[in-house]
């Protein structure tokens, strides 16, 4: 791994006594794709804002490309591309000018921005909408324009806060493809997402954050190995009967989880355990053996209760 481009040490952010970020330490190498996972309110967006040089930390140290973003905001942000969680497009300007004007904020020349804007419009499939006003765009189009805008300066680090929320599957896959190519060119990606498949697809390494702290860190495969079993057996005995059935599943799998609608058996061999279950005379209404996913890890680490 090459020299880290982001180095966070004991990063803290408090808002009026509440610690939204409570001592995060991590490093991201050049060309790496790094994910921040966590439930709502875990401190992901706050962390992203500090990385983006738009939020001053309350404690700890932070270096982006060797600079302190609190002291050298403009110089740090010059190398960043930011996709915020909520689109903040310029509603007073047409679509194409949104790209050109944004590029001007970086001091880029018009001679570069004219062809670049056309290229990005094509990427975002908005060429036909070039002279439309932003307010005429659908939610998905706005999202694509925001993403295209973040690329106008060919950033070295791309910060994506839930980039594909509101996109249809086609646009999501097109974006994943684009991000993968950027990564191949050496662009560092930092992203937050609620989609575990997206994290598995895109992230070389990720951290699961909850209550402003890192709960686990590793590659998607490592996290699954460490925090879940190879397979998960999902059994439905009918509502109201799951808990009673679960009492007779002792010794099967390495861990059981009883939910209102189903019982999850974490297992290294789901088919074998399913046979054992039927040997015990249990007849689930439906049963399903599937591979363990990052979602299982996420729910294990951050709990199933709803936040917000």
């Amino acid at each position, binding site marked *: 791994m090459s020299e880290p481009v982001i180095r966070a040490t004991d990063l803290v952010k408090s808002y009026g006594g509440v610690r939204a970020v409570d001592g995060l330490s991590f490093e991201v190498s050049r060309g790496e794709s790094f994910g921040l996972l966590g439930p709502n309110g875990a401190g992901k967006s706050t962390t992203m804002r500090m990385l983006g040089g738009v939020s001053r930390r309350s404690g700890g140290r932070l270096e982006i490309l060797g600079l302190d973003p609190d002291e050298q*905001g*403009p110089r740090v942000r010059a190398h960043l591309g930011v996709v915020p969680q909520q689109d903040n*497009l310029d509603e*007073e300007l047409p679509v194409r000018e949104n790209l050109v004007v*944004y590029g001007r904020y970086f001091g*880029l020349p018009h001679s570069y921005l004219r062809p670049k804007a056309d290229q990005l419009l*094509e990427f975002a499939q908005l060429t036909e909408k070039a002279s439309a006003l932003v307010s005429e765009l659908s939610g998905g189009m706005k999202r694509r324009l925001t993403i295209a805008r973040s690329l106008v300066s060919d950033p070295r680090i791309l910060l994506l806060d839930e980039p594909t929320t509101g996109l249809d599957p086609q646009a999501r896959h097109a974006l994943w493809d684009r991000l993968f190519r950027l990564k191949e060119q050496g662009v560092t990606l930092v992203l937050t997402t609620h989609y575990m498949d997206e994290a598995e697809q895109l992230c070389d390494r990720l951290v699961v954050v909850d209550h402003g702290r890192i709960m686990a860190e590793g590659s998607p495969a490592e996290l699954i190995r460490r925090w879940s079993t190879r397979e998960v057996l999902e059994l439905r005995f009918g509502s109201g009967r799951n808990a009673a059935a679960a009492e007779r599943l002792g010794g099967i799998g390495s861990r059981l989880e009883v939910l209102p609608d189903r019982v999850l058996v974490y297992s290294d061999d789901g088919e074998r355990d399913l046979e054992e279950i039927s040997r015990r005379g249990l007849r689930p209404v439906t049963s399903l053996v599937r591979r363990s996913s990052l979602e299982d890890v996420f729910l294990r680490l951050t709990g199933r209760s709803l936040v917000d």
Partner: protein
Amino acid sequence: MSPDRPLPDGQGLLRVPRPGALYSGNARAVFARSMRAQWRTNWAVMLSGFVEPVGYLLALGVGLGSVVGEVAGPDGAPVAYAAWIAPALLAVSAMNGAVYDSTWNVFFKLRYARLYEGMLNTSLGPLDVALGEIGVALVRGGVYATGFTGVMAAMGLVRSWWALLMVPGAVLVAFGFAAFGMAVTSWMRTIQQMDWVTFLSLPLFLFSGTFYPLDVYPEPVRWAVQALPLWHGVELLRDLAAGTPGAATAGHAAYYAVLVAVGVAVTTARLRALFLR
């Protein structure tokens, strides 16, 4: 999704920002953006702002002036009432344009459009945003002042070449109000609070020595008016229109220089507090 055409690396063409947290040295990008946004859609509204002081000049200066006759000018010599209130109306129009640009326009960008948030995700700093946005208000002030000075000349109300300095003078007045107005707006949270802007600028317009000299007031009231910004703008432009600038004129200009400095500094600090928390 077509393959990328070869374009130069954008990072290689970046303008290297100045060191520090507040200013990248690229306020003109913000200025250009807002000029584009404002004049693209609102040019008719923008030009209508110029009609207002001309209307006042005709109704009050020429119409009411025919009853009033002559009043004492800045140097004590009698002048036509129209010639006396014209520079005051110019100061008012510079104030109104700047206040509108720096309060209502800025308020919507601050609270609803999330525009500054987007700008501060780039290499821009809060001082770039403050200077760029205030700069737009100056253009309006400058356009109104040039047009109005032309109208004054055509009506024979200009008596000295000093009157040409009314244009930069009016821009300075606009600068002061824009810087101050943007700073105040940064604290506004609701549209109801914004109504205070209108509520406060109307008496400023009526009672700042615009239509009659301050000596009609009892002394404490006179002091109060003299502490407020519009009176200094009115006097500054009136001295220039009459061609009788003096130490007091320089004092009025200095008042605005301070207003500009304080306004820009406070606006920058507030943008930082709001968007770089």
